Structure formats: C-alpha cells, structure tokens
C-alpha cells in the first residue's frame, strides 16, 4: 500500500516533466499554426494580419506565459481548446481513446492467444523441426513492418476477393458491435502479428530457462505429468518476462498505432496526434501527450503490481 502511494506521488512530477518537454519540443520545430493553416500563402500576410492570427491561435504571448496559462488551465481541468476541432481538447481525446483502447486490447488478446501457446510449444519441442518452424515464423513476424502487412491484407482482400470492411465512418463498440468488430479485426491482426511474434520468442526463452531449473526437475522426478509440470510449475515463473513485454507493448499501443490507423483510416489517438502535429494544433498535441504519458504510467504500475501476484518472493518497495 505504501509502495502504491509512493508511486502515485511521483505521477505529478513525471507529468510536469513531460509537460515541459512536449511544450518546448513542439515549439522548437520551425513553423507555427499560421504556416500550418496557410502554407506558403502565409507569406502574403501583412504584420498586422499575422498578429491578429497569432492572437487567434493563442501564440501571441511569450512562451512562459503560454505555458503558465496552459498548466493553470489543467489544474482546473481545462486542457484548452483545439483549434482544428474548435472543441475542448479533453473531449476530442476522450472521443478517440475508446477506439485506441479497444484496438490495443484486441491486439493483445491476439498476441497472447497466439504467442504464448506457440512459445510454450516451441520450448517443449526445443531444437526439433517444429521449434525451428515456430522460430522462423516469429522472426518473420517481428521483422515485417506493420504497413507492409496492413497494405498486403487490404490489397489481397480488395483485389483478390472484392471485399473490405467499411472504411471511413467508424462504428463505436456500444453502437454497433458487429460493424465495430469488422472494422477492428484486420487492424488488430496487423498489430497483433508482430506483437505475437515477440511474445512467442520471449515465452519460448523464458520457458526454456525455467524448464532447466531444479524445481522442475524435482517435480518431474516426483512423477508429475508433463502437462502439470508445464502449466502448474513452469508457466507461472516463465510469465514474468511475458508480462513485462506485454505491459510495455500495451503501453505503447495506448499511445495509438499511427501507421495502422493511417492505413485502415481509423480515427484513433495516434492519427489524431499525428494530424495535430502537422497542423501545429499545440493544445491538442500537448494534451494528448500528457494523456498518453499518464496511461503509460498506469500500465507500468499495473505491471509492477502483477509481478507480486505472480511471484510472492518479490516484495515491492522493500530493499
């Protein structure tokens, strides 16, 4: 409990660091909201026109005033207004987040459901042709970029079979679950493929480590069945690296899968941040990055707590 409190207490500090970093970074990039909107035509503006547009975009004040205003707003629950959407930043983020969360969960389910059994199978058939087969597929999975796989799936389905899940308008899960699933299953497979490959490799090596341990040999010599040795004795200990990997990967996915969202035209968090950066929608970029950082910290905390559940020897926060 103490540990949990201490970890939670560090959250504001980390978020403050992230807020400074994102605030400065986006402003260090040349170009601003005005050039983003007008492009080269921005050169036609008179100084007075430029000033009035800067005031409209809220970039007319010195940077520390802008930062102070922004942070002050957040403390009151106001993340600012997105100039692209003309709506509060938090509303826009929360509207996009469910899709990203759903996609992350689906890909993780696919990754774990495929990757773990494959890894365990390979470990228990170590150095046999089937192990080699699994390792080759995993290697291919890890090294295939998601845009190649995504485009390949889209191309094969549309050119080969003349079908494709509806693109463009996204149906939220609670409105039309079937349509929602049809839109997310292919992106989830695309993301889950590489994720599953990593899970396969890590669970195979963790399992191999554990299977060589003394306690497993003892269990075997006591006459435990092969199934029981794997599932009851070896697996729980082999899970720790898998949990670590899945946690980190899941945290990344919560930040949005930019490329996959682009290819499948999904209105998720990743695409929103990318568009916001390109359009220099400062408030939206800043708000979204803070939100993503917060999620990442929560996931990290949950991973740490999961260690305790998996291995009673680990006592968090104790030397």
């Amino acid at each position, binding site marked *: 409990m103490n540990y949990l409190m201490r970890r939670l207490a560090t959250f504001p500090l980390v978020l403050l660091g992230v807020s400074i970093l994102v605030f400065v970074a986006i402003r260090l990039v040349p170009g601003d909201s005005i050039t983003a909107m007008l492009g*080269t035509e921005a050169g036609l503006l008179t100084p007075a026109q430029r000033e*009035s547009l800067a005031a409209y975009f809220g970039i007319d004040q010195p940077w520390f005033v802008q930062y102070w205003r922004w942070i002050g707003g957040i403390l009151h629950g106001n993340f600012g207004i997105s100039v692209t959407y003309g709506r509060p930043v938090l509303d826009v983020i929360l509207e996009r987040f469910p899709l990203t969360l759903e996609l992350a969960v689906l890909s993780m389910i696919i990754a774990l459901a495929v990757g773990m059994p494959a890894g365990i199978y390979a470990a228990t058939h170590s150095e046999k042709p089937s192990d080699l087969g699994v390792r080759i597929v995993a290697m291919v999975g890890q090294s295939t970029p998601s845009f190649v796989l995504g485009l390949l799936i889209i191309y094969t389905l549309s050119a080969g079979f003349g079908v494709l899940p509806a693109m*463009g308008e996204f149906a939220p899960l609670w409105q039309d679950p079937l349509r929602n699933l049809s839109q997310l299953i292919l992106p989830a497979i695309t993301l889950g493929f590489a994720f599953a490959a990593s899970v396969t490799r890590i669970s195979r090596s963790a399992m191999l480590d554990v299977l060589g341990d003394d306690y497993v040999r003892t269990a075997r010599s006591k006459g435990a069945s092969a199934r029981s040795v794997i599932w009851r004795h070896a697996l729980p200990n082999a899970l720790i690296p898998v949990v670590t990997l899945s946690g980190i990967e899941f945290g990344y996915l919560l930040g949005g899968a930019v490329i996959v969202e682009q290819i499948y035209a999904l209105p998720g968090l990743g695409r929103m941040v990318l568009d916001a950066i390109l359009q220099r929608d400062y408030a939206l970029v800043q708000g979204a990055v803070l939100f993503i950082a917060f999620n990442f910290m929560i996931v990290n905390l949950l991973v740490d707590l999961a260690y305790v559940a998996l291995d009673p020897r680990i006592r968090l926060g104790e030397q």
Partner: protein
Amino acid sequence: MTRHLTRTLLSGIAVAAMLGVAAVSAQSATLHMAWSQDATGLDPHKQTAFSSLRLLELIYEPLVRVDASLRIIPAIAKSWEFSKDGKELTFKLDPKAKFQDGTAVTSADVKASFERILDEKTGAAARANFLSIAGIDTPDAATVVFHLSQPDVPILTAMSDVNAAIVPAAEIKAGSIGTKAVGSGPFKLDKWDPNAKEVLSANKDWAGGATGVDGIEISVLPDEAAILAAMRTKQIDFALLNDPLVATLVPKEASLQLNRVPVLAYHVLQLNPSRKPMTELKVRQAISCAIDRQEVLDTASLGEGKVTGPLTIPALATDPSQLFCYKRDVDKAKKLMAEAGFADGFSATVIGATGEPPTAAAEAQVIQSQLAEIGVKLDIKMMELNVYVDAWLKGDFDMAIALNGGRADPYTMYNRYWTKAGNLQKVANYIDDTLDSQMQQGRAETDPEKRKAIFTAFEKHLAEMSPWIWLYTSYSYTAQQKNIAGFVPTPTGTLFSLSKVTIQQ
C-alpha cells in the same frame, strides 16, 4: 488452441467481408467520396489548403466563377461590367441567390464580405489581390459597385476564388464565420469531424437549380492505396488522388474511371539568385540547360504531366520548346559554367518537403544526377512540410523543389514573386525591372490580344533569366465508379461540378 484461434480469426474476416458488402448496397443518392487530406478549417477567407478550398467551394459561392476553359462565368453575380477607364466594376446580383439559412444574398452581404477580406485583423489569405479596391457602393440590394484606385483587370479572376466568397453580413457581425458554414452554394455542411469525415446535404434553395445527388459523404482515408482498395469494393464512388503512382493503377480496374487534367500548379526548381554562385546569370542559365525536364517528369512522375514554362494557363502559355534551353544541352551548360568561372562546379543544398508533392524527393534525385554532369554537387535535404514552408518563406535555401499554386490570371499568379512590391519577393529574391514593368502593363491592359503579347514576352524573359527552373505541370486526378456521370475536371482542380453529378443505377 492455435487451430481454434485460426478458425475464429477466419470467421472474423468473413464477418468483416459480409459487412463490407452490406455497406455497398446501402448507398442511394448519396455520393460517397474520399480524399487523403482533410480540410483544415471552414473560414473561406482564411483557408488555402487544397482540400479546404475544394470543400468550401461546395458550400460557399464567390461573385463569379471560372469554367473548365478558365472563362469567367456568373455565380452570385448575374452580370458585371468595367467602366471605360477600368476603375469601376459593377455587379448585378442574381435575385434568386439565397444563403442556406433562407435569407437573400444582397449587396450589403457583398460589401461586408469584401470589407472583412480587406480588414487586416481578419488575416484573409487573398487580401493582397484586392488592395486596389478604394470603396464599395451599394446603390440597391442587387447592385454592387467597386471603385478601384487603378485599372485592375485581374481583380475579376481573383474574385472567382472561394477565398473571395460572399458570406452573410449577419454571420460576420455575429463572429461565427469559421465555426458555422452558411453559404449560398449547392451543398450544406451537416457535419464535420476533422480528419475523419464531412457530411453534406443538397441545398434545395440553391439558385443554380437542383443538385444531382441528395448529399455527399466525404471520408478521410489517409492512405491512397486504401482509397483505391475501397473503390474496388465499391464503398467509395468518387475520390481525389494526389499520388500518380496510385492514379495510374485506376484504369486497370474495369469498374473505375480515371479523370485527369493538367493543372495550373507547377513543379519548379527554385534557385536563390541572392546566394552565390546563383547570383551569376550564366550559372543559373547553365543549370537550366543541364536539366532535362522531360526526364524529371518521366522518372519522378511516371510521365504523368506536361513540361511547362512559367505560364501554365492554357490560353496564354507559350510552346515550351520556344523557351530558353528547354532542350537539354550539357555542352552549352558546361560552357556557361566555365564562362562564369565555375568550370569545376560548386556545391549547394536543395530543400524539399516530404510528401508535398509526393514526387518531391524523386525530382530532387533526378536533378541531383543531372546537375552532377556539370559539376554541381547537390545535397538533398527533405523536411516536414511546415519546416519547409518556414525556410521557404524566409528565402533560406540555395535551391528548393516546390509545387507552387497557379491562378487563372498571370498577374495574380506571379505578382507576388516578380514585382518589386510583391509579398513573396523575398522568397524569389530576384529583382528585374523588365519583369516588374511587364507585370504592371499586364495588370492594366484590357485588350486580350495585347495582354497576351505582354505575358508572352514576360514568360520568355523569365525563362531566359532563369531565377527558377520551371519543370512541369502534373495532372489533377479524380477516380470514379463508371456509374457516376457529369463530373467535369478543370485546371483549377475545383470539384464544383459535383453539384450536377448523378449516380446511375
């Protein structure tokens, strides 16, 4: 378990497939459209992004329009007339013209719209084109008189742009331009979810008559290969394409049709004549002679386009073969370099924007290899669009690969770069008395033949002085299902004719 999972996944794909098919049969008289880049805002006076203009042209109307041959035709104004001295321009408005909130379009709205454009506080993109307006009179509700400080022929073409759209005076007063879209055009904007979709419905009160479809749904599909895939499965009826690589795949699909038309925008290698050694005319001319424009077009853009001189307006353009060094001549280029004292060549950096246009990097690479033959070592620096725009506006480059927008009138198109007072003179970095005076003559000349002669001389001189190396104009592409009828592609890229498009069953 793995086998079970495979079965589950396959059935998931099957469900997806069925739903995809279901989505097709649901379409009625709504046109499903897609593009890869979305509009960036709704204020017609402030927007310059290509997609924004294309969207706003369907909602708002200017006083006049240009047709596919770039002739001025009526829009909100039924007729117009220049006074004899060219300093008074009178418009008669269409009495049937109505805004989408049901109110009539009156001369007061026209006056308020132009006053808004001219007000520096607005930050209107096209303000520079209307600086000759000295006053606006509204003798009655259907008549507007613009008093000009000097004869200004191109102002009429500038008024055909959606950046000069007429908006309701009441909305200006309420400060709601940009948050609410109330125009007098063929479609009403029902919903805009930025970077995701737009929903438009037909404006039953449109003075131009009934539209061919009940509405248009525009989806933003950022990947153009995915747009093509969605067209194959008939989810999308009509799409805007930028990438020639994707566009050339369209005719391979039996059910799809590709529309292409050379546009006014031009691909150009901008030299910076204020930086050594581009300060030397002979060096610039050597670069012009060393570049094989057709090869740049063939390699970077699969030959999809047309080699062009500075003028891309079909009625005014000179045959490029008549312009200075449009036939590659490496020997001449080497000779010019030697005469300028650069027989051993020099090094320079060329900047380009990633993906804007999609051919930028390829163009830079071809030019790099061509210029290497005369000893010019080019270092290519690709940048994110905004970073590039920033450097471009400051004139902070040796050379720049650019895709610059064209206009239906040469004065409006080039006044910004090649007159001494041009707003983008700092970008062009080149002052030339001849060009300046030719521009001023062209602005005031009302006789079409004389005007053409002025601009032909302007084009010839510009190509010879080679501050920039004009390369080619590409095509604007739209792809459509073959059952879509009535779309007319135009050099300005406008999608206005979607107002009369019909879907054949």
